[in-house]
């Protein structure tokens, strides 16, 4: 008799347990998990998705996403995302070394791959925050051309809508607002930068190619770091460069050290920070950072 009761109880328990299985998570209400490879994409995803997305930029704060390499743990995190947003144009040099689901990836710059800028004679640094690195191959700061940035945002939005078609209306509305902001930014840039297309300019790093092309800047790049005083030979090389390209303004990814700025001033070159914002800024957002960049540039005459 007791064994019958035990069997009966077990059956009831099992039947009940099946019935109270936690309901499978409704895909439609769970936030869309997006992993991005740089901050501009994070900004676009957050603007387009709002509260319906959970955006992760796995690059540590302060690191340069263009030269960051994910370890196995970071790759594992990316694998579990619903959408992997890539900049494209060779930005993610680590892509060939990792395993990521192809169908979850969106190359946001693929739509204008015929307009990538290729760098033929790149020079390799032997110093810099991450050690040796090079800017060879394809220029990858595509978002500094704000019209391209809008196209990247559009490509990203479409990928998000494919993943969550029930939010198409919301994503579209947010995209329109973002595009309006990017369009206004593009107008500001054309106004501020476009008026100085005859002016020779310098760049401390070869990361402003798309900015230069879009806004008609005569930009020559060298390879200097904001906190590392260049060697004498490099100052000499700069002087030679200035002889043929008499620039009065030099764009920097971050404010150079006072010593560098002072020395540049002796050469008649003003240093102005123009942050590419590849990683999340300490304060503000992408739009704010770009507006500040343009304002700073506009103030230099």
């Amino acid at each position, binding site marked *: 008799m007791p064994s019958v009761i035990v069997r009966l109880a077990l059956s009831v328990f099992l039947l009940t347990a099946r019935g109270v299985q936690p309901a499978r998570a409704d895909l439609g209400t769970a936030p869309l998990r997006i992993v991005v490879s740089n901050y501009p994409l994070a900004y676009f995803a957050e603007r387009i998705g709002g509260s319906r997305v959970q955006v992760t930029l796995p690059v540590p704060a302060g690191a340069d996403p263009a030269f960051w390499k994910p370890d196995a743990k970071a*790759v594992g995190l990316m*694998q579990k995302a619903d959408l992997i947003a890539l900049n494209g144009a060779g930005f993610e040099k680590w892509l060939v070394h990792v*395993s990521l689901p192809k169908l979850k990836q969106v190359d946001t710059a693929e739509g204008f791959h015929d307009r990538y800028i290729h760098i033929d004679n790149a020079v*390799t640094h032997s110093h810099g925050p991450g050690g040796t690195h090079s800017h*060879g*191959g394809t220029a990858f700061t595509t978002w500094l051309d704000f019209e391209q940035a809008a196209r990247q945002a559009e490509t990203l939005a479409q990928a998000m809508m494919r993943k969550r078609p029930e939010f198409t209306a919301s994503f579209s509305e947010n995209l329109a607002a973002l595009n309006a902001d990017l369009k206004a930014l593009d107008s500001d840039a054309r106004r501020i930068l476009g008026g100085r297309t005859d002016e020779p300019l310098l760049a401390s790093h070869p990361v402003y190619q798309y900015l230069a092309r879009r806004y008609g800047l005569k930009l020559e790049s060298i390879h200097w770091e904001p906190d590392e005083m260049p060697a004498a030979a490099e100052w000499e090389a700069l002087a030679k460069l200035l002889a043929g390209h008499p620039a009065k303004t030099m764009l920097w990814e971050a404010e150079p050290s006072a010593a560098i700025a002072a020395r540049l001033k002796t050469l008649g070159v003003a240093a102005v920070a123009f942050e590419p914002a590849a990683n999340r800024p300490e304060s503000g957002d992408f739009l704010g950072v770009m507006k500040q960049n343009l304002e700073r540039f506009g103030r230099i005459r």
Partner: protein
Amino acid sequence: MLNHDFYLAWRYLSFHKTRSAILIACLSLMAFLPLGLHALLDDGERQMSGRAAATPLLVGAKGSSVDLTLTALYFSEAAAPAITLAEADLVGASGWADPLPLYSRFRIKGQPLVGVTLDYFDYRRLAPARGELPALLGDCVLGHEAAAALGLEPGDSLATTPENLFDLAGVYPLKLHVTGVLAQSGSPDDQAVFVDLKTTWVIEGLGHGHDQQTPAARHQSLPFAQAAAQLQVDARLVTYTEITAANIDSFHFHGDPAGYPISAVIALPHDRRGATLLKGRYLADDGTTQIIEPAIVTHGLLHNIFRIGALFDGILVLVGATTLLALGLVFSLSLRLRRRELETIFLLGCSRATVFKLVVAELALLGLASAILSGALLLAVDHYGESWIRQFLLS
């Protein structure tokens, strides 16, 4: 009296162990063979149909559709000719279907080595039971049975070897890192060692890493870039056999990846219209690729198997009838040999009816033992049939 009949029958059969064992074996085989064979065929049909149904469309080299199906679905050793990654790109670019390229050319210690993109695991609903999916170049994840056969766990290493005698020069021996073991799926995926598609290309020799590069020619090797200028490499160049955190950055590929080899593309159409449009693209006779529906190919294959099965049935009926006749002869001869015993028991008062019951009891016990043995054999088929089918029929 019934218990006396069975008691005497049991004593007789257990005294004549060899004779009884032979009779039981014959009867068991007679019962088991048709049932077991049909169970195996049913298992085979179920496996093949299930696997094929889960693979809507397959793009591969023109030629035998059976070879293509066996290569892509069952990772068979008789590999179909390769196609290029461009075919997967075409499928994806069409907008009608999602592509899952796979490359199953190699074998590693008897297990198929299959290069896939991570989407394959999502599609086949394969998840790690232990460890993780591959994350970096050189990682691998093992199917449930592959892990058992190779005796490996996450954290272990597994070396590829140039096993293909026809392609010694092209194969790049590589030490793979086992990152995980997949949960059992009851499919050919259990047998496989899975790596990222790019890792199979490293094994193929299409990608490699270097120890040092000379400063004069130092420029970052671009992933999949058109190699306009080869790297100037040191004469003391070392091509790596293990991809580690220290050397992974040096690994690169030459040439256009669209030209890299794959075995097939599993195409997942978005809808029926997409499937029709995609199939229509491959109708041209002059193309080098074909698109097939594995369910149709499998159906044809099974049809042939069933015809063989029907032939087996006919043969088994004949064999069974012959065996029964032989057994009947053995039994009647046995009774003749027991003449003295029968005379004794007649004299002791045994009726013909009782003698008949004694014989029936012996037959009943033999039948029961045969039923138990053939039942045990059928249970074994039920338990191991799936893996036997995969090993002997599908690999």
